[in-house]
């Protein structure tokens, strides 16, 4: 078999395709998007039929994957870290119901917030739900862990999480594929009430989950992903989780340190292996890509233990992703820097693409709202969030997907008028629709401006759930059809668009203005494809 050059994301996708996965469910989100995209683009009938369509949001994706597992098939749900907040309810409960066919949750964290609102560490969720978590350090491990994870999931009938971070998700390296497995045949769960979480059943199942914890620790102790390498220098021992291990070896210029090292790639933490470090070394350095979750566990109370160092005592920065320089610095063996960045170099933040419809939408909104005073535009997450930057300064909030409509509603309920929100079409169907229902039910005076570029733009142009049906959805939810307007955000329609938005701003009820123009990136791609056909 030939080696494949794969991103970490793609290695997981390929692993799924080769390990007998029957379906993958996901909502796009950097840095997880390329998992689903790889399956969609490299789908071959040889692997058997694999369901691979985007879901409306992470919760629906997780639940659909769980439903597929219910039938005995192997399934995967993929999302970015904050997506797991959206799917947290089914996630926590799936640990109690357990699964039937192998179930993998792949979560891609984004330390340093390259493309995210926060840098939460999904390993806490794994611990919270008390399920196994796997953390690969390279593309080959990512691929192999899919096979291993499905097996582990079927052995314990539990969901298993694979946690990756941006650097692995978006780094390419060679992967040697394994022989392809056949998909599972369907077969209902052997326990017919397993998935019925009535209190009586839930209590029994929860105790089962508690009982199995010891075995999960033993699995970790014997795991191929957790390796203890002894060393002669016991003045310090090193526990390196996930990618931190790579930076450790880089700091030692490719050699094994002379200190004892424990590489962690599977949780719950293997107590015995950890004991080999904490029990024999004078000091323990904990290196983790993400929050100091292992460090916190080792410190216990009081948290001031001088024996342990890591992110919590300033040996490493408390926030942000690790890199070879930070780790080498913490080890006291820094790399020699090149020349400093000359002061002439300016920052280059992301910006709207030239010709983007969102630009014309914001220009129209800014003129419409001029005179009402500042601080009235609630917004959301997508390309249109760039409206927060110069020269627009057009939006006042960006919290989580869907929050624009609901926050505008709350502000309107408090008397702010006009109360406007700007939301993208994909964000609207992800989690804006339910908030709109609240506003309609309560007759809250808000104006919802939907920047409808008919795609999920920020993540690279994936299918948007309700393209062409946004007006119908708004009307179905109960917005008065007289107050559902569609405008074409183009310079030549500017005056007309300002008038339309103005009228709706004055209206004391729920109004929706849909600014519809195809994303120019998607339009260019479409035209290129049409030409080559």
């Amino acid at each position: 078999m030939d080696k494949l050059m794969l991103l970490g994301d793609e290695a997981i996708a390929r692993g799924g395709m080769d390990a007998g996965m029957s379906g993958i469910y996901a909502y796009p989100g950097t840095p997880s998007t390329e998992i689903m995209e790889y399956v969609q683009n490299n789908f071959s009938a040889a692997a058997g039929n694999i369901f691979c369509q985007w879901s409306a949001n992470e919760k629906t994706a997780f639940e659909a994957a769980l439903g597929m597992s219910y039938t005995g098939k192997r399934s995967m749900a993929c999302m970015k870290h904050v997506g797991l907040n959206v799917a947290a309810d089914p996630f926590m409960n799936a640990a109690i119901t357990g699964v039937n066919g192998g179930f993998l949750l792949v979560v891609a964290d984004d330390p340093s917030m390259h493309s995210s609102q926060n840098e939460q560490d999904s390993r806490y969720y794994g611990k919270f739900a008390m399920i196994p978590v796997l953390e690969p350090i390279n593309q080959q491990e990512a691929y192999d862990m899919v096979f291993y994870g499905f097996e582990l999931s079927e052995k314990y009938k539990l969901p298993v999480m694979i946690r990756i971070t941006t650097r692995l998700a978006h780094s390419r390296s060679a992967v040697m594929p394994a022989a392809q497995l056949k998909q599972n045949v369907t077969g209902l769960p052997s326990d017919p009430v397993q998935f019925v979480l009535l209190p009586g059943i839930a209590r029994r199942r929860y105790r089962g989950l508690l009982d199995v914890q010891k075995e999960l620790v033993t699995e970790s102790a014997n795991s191929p992903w957790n390796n203890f390498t002894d060393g002669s220098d016991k003045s310090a021992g090193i526990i390196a989780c996930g990618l931190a291990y790579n930076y450790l070896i880089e700091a030692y210029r490719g050699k094994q340190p002379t200190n004892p090292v424990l590489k962690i790639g599977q949780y719950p933490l293997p107590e015995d292996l950890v004991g080999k470090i904490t029990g024999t070394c004078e000091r323990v350095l904990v290196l983790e890509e993400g929050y100091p979750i292992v460090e916190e566990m080792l410190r216990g109370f009081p948290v001031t233990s001088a024996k342990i160092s890591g992110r919590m005592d300033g040996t490493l920065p408390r926030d942000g992703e690790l890199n070879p320089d930070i780790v080498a610095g913490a080890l006291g063996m820094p790399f020699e820097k090149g020349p400093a960045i000359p002061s002439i170099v300016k920052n280059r933040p992301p910006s709207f693409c030239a010709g983007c419809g969102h630009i014309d939408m914001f220009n129209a909104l800014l003129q419409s709202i001029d005179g009402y005073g500042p601080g009235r535009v609630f917004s959301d997450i997508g390309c249109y969030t760039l409206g927060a930057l110069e020269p627009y300064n057009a939006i006042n909030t960006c919290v989580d997907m869907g929050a624009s409509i609901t926050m505008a509603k709350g502000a309107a309920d408090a008397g702010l008028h006009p109360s406007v929100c700007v939301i993208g079409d994909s964000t609207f169907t992800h989690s804006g629709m339910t908030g709109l229902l609240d506003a309609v039910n309560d007759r809250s005076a808000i104006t919802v401006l939907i920047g409808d570029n008919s795609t999920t733009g920020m993540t690279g142009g994936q299918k948007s759930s309700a393209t062409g049906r946004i007006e119908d959805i708004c009307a179905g939810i109960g917005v008065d059809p007289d107050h559902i307007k569609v405008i074409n955000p183009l310079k030549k329609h500017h005056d007309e668009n300002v008038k339309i938005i103005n009228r709706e701003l004055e209206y004391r009820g729920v109004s929706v203005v849909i600014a519809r123009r195809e994303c120019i990136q998607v339009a260019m791609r479409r035209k290129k494809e049409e030409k080559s056909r």
Partner: protein
Amino acid sequence: MQTDIIIAGVGGQGILSIAACIGMAALKSNLHLKQSEVHGMSQRGGAVQSNMRISDRMILSDLIPQGSANLIMSVEPMEALRYLPWLSADGWIVTNTTPVKNIKDYPDISGIMTELRSVRNNVIIDADSIARRTGSLRTSNMVMLGAASPYTGIEYSLLEDAVRDIFKRKGEDVVELNLKALKAGKDYFNNKQ
């Protein structure tokens, strides 16, 4: 043997096609490779880079430590300077001269050139003009790759093979155009020597 390369540019300039060519050639040479890319928000006109690590030994870190890059190849002049802390003492900067001015405070280009020329090992090349002359501005990336090819540690003919492989699906004309651009970049380097 180990070569650490930072490829720099602005989101949308297509630095990943350069990375893909080097990557494919490295794989053909049976070398180990790590190629870290930027996807997501910064692709919208922000600063982007790719860390490429090629070695005959296993490489663990996807990221290049500071002071270690043998080559910074940039398709935009200011972006070349952004990664100077990663340049090794005897490393090379190979940069295009055409600025992308998508920010309000883009600095004076002559100031940027002065900084670039003060880097000990620099190749400053008007890849856009050369690309236009060889046939298409769109192949400017390949001119850059050609000009930087002697510092990649990879045999030139393998880069040619990679260009053929990568552009194959776009037709023979596109392959030829890109090969010509690659050669033009290489010739520029040779003439400078």
